[in-house]
């Protein structure tokens, strides 16, 4: 309100970040701290899966078919081995398959969101700042694609990609096709939000000040506008991550995603579904719970972010 604000000395980056209302809000919200903790735990255990997992489910040599259908925490009737979360039909340790499966789910999720984000931000910035017929083309394409649910677009891309890749490469390519399919189905959200925010920012006087100096379009877009449109992007990226993980699981569950040789959480659930009715509940239960906790905690984090970054509520 007055000149008093300039009295205290400038703070370091870290102190500034820690003291910000944003960090304060985070510390004061148990749900946010809790879900951030769960996400961090799951991501770390996926990254370090080879170190944590008691077995390597992809190594046929470590498998013993005799160990099949061992219940959790119970000794196998033939071998006497004990598995925390039991084994599946082929004797694979469910705990290990979940860790490795989560690796694939998270890899696909993060890569797809990153891909969608880069594509969406670029196109959204250009559409919003440059305008004209470029904007018309980009946004019409976005509108047409938005008419179709992301999961359907992803399926179509997957189907087409499957049609044009030779059969012997299909398994190897499946993960990349998944990333492409989910990423391409999701860029519209980013582009629309970034374009909307860009349209608001570009009329602000600081952009006009930069234009008056003679700054070029590229510099204005990257240096002035981009940093100011990132907070809604962060919110969308978080929610998109949850959606991408679910989309990947859904595609894999439907049998049009990760191949059985590289099972993701969705594939594990697909496999486990067959044994639910015969009483081997653990094969489906544990991957499902993992998937749900992952998606839920990312969603909770996104929900909190949206409220925390909403300028009106601050």
């Amino acid at each position, binding site marked *: *309100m*007055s000149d008093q604000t*300039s009295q205290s000395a400038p703070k370091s980056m870290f102190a500034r970040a820690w003291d910000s209302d944003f960090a304060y809000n985070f510390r004061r919200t148990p749900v946010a701290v809790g879900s951030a903790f769960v996400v961090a735990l799951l991501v770390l255990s996926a990254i370090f899966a080879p170190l944590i997992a008691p077995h390597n489910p992809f190594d046929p040599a470590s498998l013993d078919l005799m160990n099949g259908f061992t219940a959790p925490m119970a000794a196998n009737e033939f071998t006497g081995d004990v598995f925390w979360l039991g084994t599946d039909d082929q004797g694979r340790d469910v705990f290990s398959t979940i860790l490795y499966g989560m690796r694939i789910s998270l890899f696909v999720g993060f890569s797809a969101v990153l891909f969608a984000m880069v594509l969406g931000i670029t196109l959204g910035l250009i559409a919003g700042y440059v305008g004209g017929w470029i904007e018309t083309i980009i946004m019409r394409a976005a509108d047409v694609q938005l008419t179709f649910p992301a999961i359907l677009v992803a399926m179509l891309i997957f189907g087409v990609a499957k049609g044009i890749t030779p059969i012997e490469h299909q398994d190897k390519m499946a993960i990349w096709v998944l990333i492409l399919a989910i990423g391409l189905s999701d860029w519209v959200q980013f582009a629309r939000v970034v374009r909307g925010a860009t349209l608001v920012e570009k009329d*602000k006087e*600081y952009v006009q*000040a930069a234009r*008056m100096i003679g700054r070029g379009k590229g510099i204005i877009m990257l240096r002035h506008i981009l*940093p100011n449109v990132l907070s809604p992007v962060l919110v969308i990226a978080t929610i998109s991550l949850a959606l991408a993980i679910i989309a990947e699981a859904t595609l894999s569950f439907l049998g049009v995603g990760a191949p059985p040789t590289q099972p993701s959480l969705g594939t594990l659930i697909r496999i486990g579904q067959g044994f639910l009715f015969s009483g081997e509940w653990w094969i489906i239960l544990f991957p499902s719970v993992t998937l749900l906790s992952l998606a839920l905690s990312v969603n909770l984090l996104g929900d909190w972010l949206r409220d925390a970054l909403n300028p009106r509520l601050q």
Partner: protein
Amino acid sequence: MTLLTIEDLSVHFPTRHKVFVAVNEADLTVEPGEIHGLVGESGAGKSTIGAAVMGLLERPGHIAGGTVSFKGEAISGRDAEAMRSLRGAKISMIFQDPLTSLNPLLTVGQQLIETIQFHLKLSDGDSRKRAVELLDRVGIPLPDERIDMYPHQFSGGMRQRVVIALALCSEPDVIIADEPTTALDVSIQAQILELIKELARERQTGVILITHDMGVIADTTDKVTVMYQGAVVESGATEQVMGNPQHDYTKSLIAAVPRPTLKVHRFPQLSYGGRSIEFHIDDLARNWQKPEPSKSGTLLKVENLTKTFLQKGALIPSRRKYFKAVDNVSFDIRDGEVFGVVGESGSGKSTVARMIATLYETNGGKITFDETEVTALSSNRDLEGYRRQIQMIFQDPYSSLNPRMRVDEIIAEPVKHHKLLEGAAIQHRVDELLDRVGLGSEAGRRYPHEFSGGQRQRISIARALATQPRFLICDEPTSALDVSIQAQILNILKDLQEHLGLTMLFISHDLPVVRQMCDRVGVMRQGQMVEVAETEELFANPKEAYTRELLSLMPKLEGLSTEGLKDEIV
């Protein structure tokens, strides 16, 4: 009988670091037929009082102490349902922005009739009749037809009339008007204030008029209460308080108001509450490389400038509609003078500024700067030389600085872009500029959100000076600022002209400010330049009818104290 009594009212907003005291033990009374002005700068707590009386405080704000009584009966501290029955029925409110105060999906009539029926329990037919009468009373022409229209079909001034009609539906005893004319043009502002005055007399309604505008207070109110940082500092009859203020804050506030009738050299630095700042523009002059004056004595020449905007697009070119924002405008600005352009919103004055600033392309006409025809230059490279010599100060101090850039980066950007200095010399120039505009060089390591509106406007000025320009465009540089901050900024701008010899284009809607700042003035209306004259000549002998009209609508402020101004009067 006193209608409304506010005693020792305190409103608290608990925040993370401390409890923010928005209103601190304020007192106020309203008598029938009286307009009571509540004046203060932003953050003074004047709107909070209105919201507290209405029971519309935004959370986490709450009444922490004191009472509000209506006709001697305490009404604060009642539960929500009791407040609601009183609200609207006995006390009404008018909000600032008529564009957002009406529900866009219901007709004006539907909104009026609903309110009338609720309060007066009339039949459908009678309610409608009453709604038409009310619209007629607030000056809406053809009320029988207009009643079935939607809010978007009314202009801003008409909408504010509808808002007033809505506030009158229940025949309230007290109306709280929160900045009712701030969003309106000066000519419409006068009409709305006149209407409020008439209604208060005619119905013996008590009005609390919340405003930041001393002109509105002086011309409209019977009594006035002055607030500063949540507390009442002075209260009394308007003539008394305006003509002979007792409190130091009131004195400083009144001294900072630009007068339409007398011109001051500088605004007095009557400081209150740590608001005074030290700036040393004269020190800048030592390192300032003054360019050769232009040979002809004219720095900027604008000839037949025209700008059209597409209003309605269509596939067939002949069906497209265009809007001429600037229509054949010509003027020139002499070396070293301040040239003012005044006009109401939509007159095209900002568009002219933006074309000169190369932010808009022109659709015809010529701009010549120091013998170079700027409009003939097309590439960015050719324009570099021109852009280095002109700079602009924008209206909104909150959006004119990039919130994600540090202050020193903001000020250094033009220097780096034009490659005027290198390395440590850049930082040196930034530090010097921040020092000279009174912020201190350590301000460079902070981000814009850490500064107040007036401080940000000084950062804008520092940025504008970084390239040592010859020509400064000021587009309503103080209209978003409080009056005491406005005085500081205007003083800095006056110094820039005096010590650095800067030539300025000063865009404003505020005639008293223009009178203080400008050597010559052009009046614009609907895209056209109506009249150009020396400032004193224009105010003394306006030639055109439109100029006379504008001048007549300007608040005279003759009753305001001139304490502290005496030495500065030119």
